[in-house]
């Protein structure tokens, strides 16, 4: 377990963070800018010291102000990937990658130089200077450098925030690969729900210096009360699926989940692999009977499980499909017209084209499905 129970004042900002998360998989610390996400991760790394409280990872105590324990950052064995890479300008790429490696105990170096360089695909960059790399390459080297320091926990502070769209898409698969291949717990700070949904298993929602919620990804995202924090247009549900079939003629794939199936633009993953889909609430429409004369392919029968008004004009509807709950954002007018109430059977409609690859993430084969 990773347990955090700390207080920290920084000028006019005060953080009071309490949460516990399993030390496995990806734990996302999510919140808006200024919510205190970076403060949390800096406290875990030891870059900041808590005013009071306790931080522990597994059976190692990092900080405990009551017992006057404070492990310096260099002995915490946490790899840190910063938003701005922070590569050493006076060292070559290889010198950067080896910086932490040579400082790790010789008897405890499970991650070899070769394998990490291969996974990140940076072999051809080793002799270069950091200044000559693209932003995406720099961030890959930063990932490798943190990994090679042989950490027990990897911390990432908005590692994609400094990159533009295409570069983000270039780096995400590398993060997924190291999550799946090296089995290190990762704490991933982000204000982007897209990234978080694609990568994380566990979600810690931070707001105004407090932890608003903490739990498994699916549970948190389907909670209606957290929607103001997650944002109206970000609102949605996460559905864990398995690839069932590919249709090469129409370039579509069929995904099955506990509660139905989805046709989505072709997924470059083998049949049987776990895939996670984010259904944004604004992309889901509702009908009282199955409409067959519409272009919408995904028509899923279910029942209304919850209703919450948003901004005075929208209604956030939770719809239960078998063992899965998804969300639909409709206008209040539509709610009145359809007479929606809890328990009413409805059809959830999702356009195939609404599910672009920003809504799809890959899970390891032994995933949660």
């Amino acid at each position: 377990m990773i347990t955090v129970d700390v207080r920290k004042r920084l000028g006019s900002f005060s953080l009071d963070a309490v949460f516990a998360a399993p030390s496995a998989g990806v734990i996302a610390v999510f919140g808006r800018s200024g919510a205190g996400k970076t403060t949390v991760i800096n406290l875990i790394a030891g870059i900041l010291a808590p005013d009071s409280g306790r931080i522990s990872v597994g059976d190692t105590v990092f900080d405990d102000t009551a017992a006057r324990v404070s492990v310096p950052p260099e002995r915490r064995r946490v790899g840190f990937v910063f938003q701005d890479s922070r590569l050493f300008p006076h060292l070559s790429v290889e010198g950067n990658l080896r910086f932490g490696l040579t400082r790790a105990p010789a008897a405890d170096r499970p991650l070899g130089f070769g394998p990490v360089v291969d996974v990140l695909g940076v072999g051809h960059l080793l002799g270069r200077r950091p200044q000559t790399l693209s932003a995406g390459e720099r961030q890959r080297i930063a990932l490798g450098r943190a990994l090679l320091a042989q950490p027990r926990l990897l911390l990432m502070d908005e590692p994609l925030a400094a990159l533009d769209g295409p570069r983000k898409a270039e780096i995400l698969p590398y993060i997924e690969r190291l999550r799946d291949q090296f089995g290190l717990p990762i704490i991933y700070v982000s204000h982007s729900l897209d990234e978080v949904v694609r990568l994380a298993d566990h979600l810690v929602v931070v707001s105004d210096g407090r932890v608003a919620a903490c739990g498994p990804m699916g549970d948190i995202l389907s909670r209606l009360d957290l929607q103001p924090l997650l944002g109206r247009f970000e609102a949605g549900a996460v559905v864990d699926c398995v690839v069932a079939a590919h249709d090469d003629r129409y370039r579509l794939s069929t995904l099955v989940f506990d509660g139905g199936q989805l046709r989505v633009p072709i997924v470059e993953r083998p049949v049987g692999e776990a895939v996670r889909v984010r259904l944004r609430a604004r992309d889901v429409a509702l009908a009282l009977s199955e409409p067959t004369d519409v272009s919408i392919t995904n028509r899923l029968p279910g029942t209304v499980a919850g209703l919450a008004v948003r901004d005075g004009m929208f209604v956030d509807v939770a719809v239960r499909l078998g063992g899965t709950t998804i969300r639909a954002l409709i206008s209040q007018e539509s709610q009145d017209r359809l007479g929606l109430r809890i328990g009413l059977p409805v059809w959830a409609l999702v356009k195939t084209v609404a599910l672009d690859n920003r809504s799809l993430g890959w899970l390891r084969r032994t995933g949660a499905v």
Partner: protein
Amino acid sequence: MPSHAEITAFTLSLEVAAAATLVSLPLAVAIAWLLARGTFWGRQALDAVVHAPLVLPPVVIGYLLLLTFGVRGPVGSWLDRVLGIRFVFTTAGAALAAGVMSFPLMVRAIRLSIDAVDGGLEWAARTLGASRADVFRSVTLPLMLPGIVSGAIVAFAASLGEFGATITFASNIEGETRTLPLAIYSAIQSPDGDRVALRLVLLSFALAVGALWLAEVADRRVRRMLGR
């Protein structure tokens, strides 16, 4: 052709400036570090003391050195008794005077380079397993190198030109403390020293041009090392 005495003044100047620069460099790095990063009581006072040679007349510094490091001074008498080192009328004394006078220039250049080091890189190094001392050696110091080089160059140049404190403290003794500026001064004082003074001025020029060229080379090397 320059006479033997003129050549001696030339080599002595180099020797004094090199000694002053090399000996004060580690101390300047330490003081600059304390001034840039330290949070201790008396930092302002230290800052003032370090900068005193910049604002006080050189003669005053020379006199203060005489009071402290003279054979009867508190430090000077101890050094003489215990280690057998004398500063008055010696090349070491000339180097001490030059080092003290150029010290603030050196500290300022190095301090600026410390301020320019990105603290984020140092924290990154800590998370990669480097202790504070290790971070200083492997990250901070290399990144400070441009400032250290330019501090050394400025101090070396200032030491070559040091006059007031040297003549007050170490006196004007041929082969011991008579550096180029002092030799030029002596030549001007003598009835027909114009030709000698002129030759010494040319030597000064040669020294300055040579030193500037070396400085340029060093600076370029350091920048290439840092990839700038």
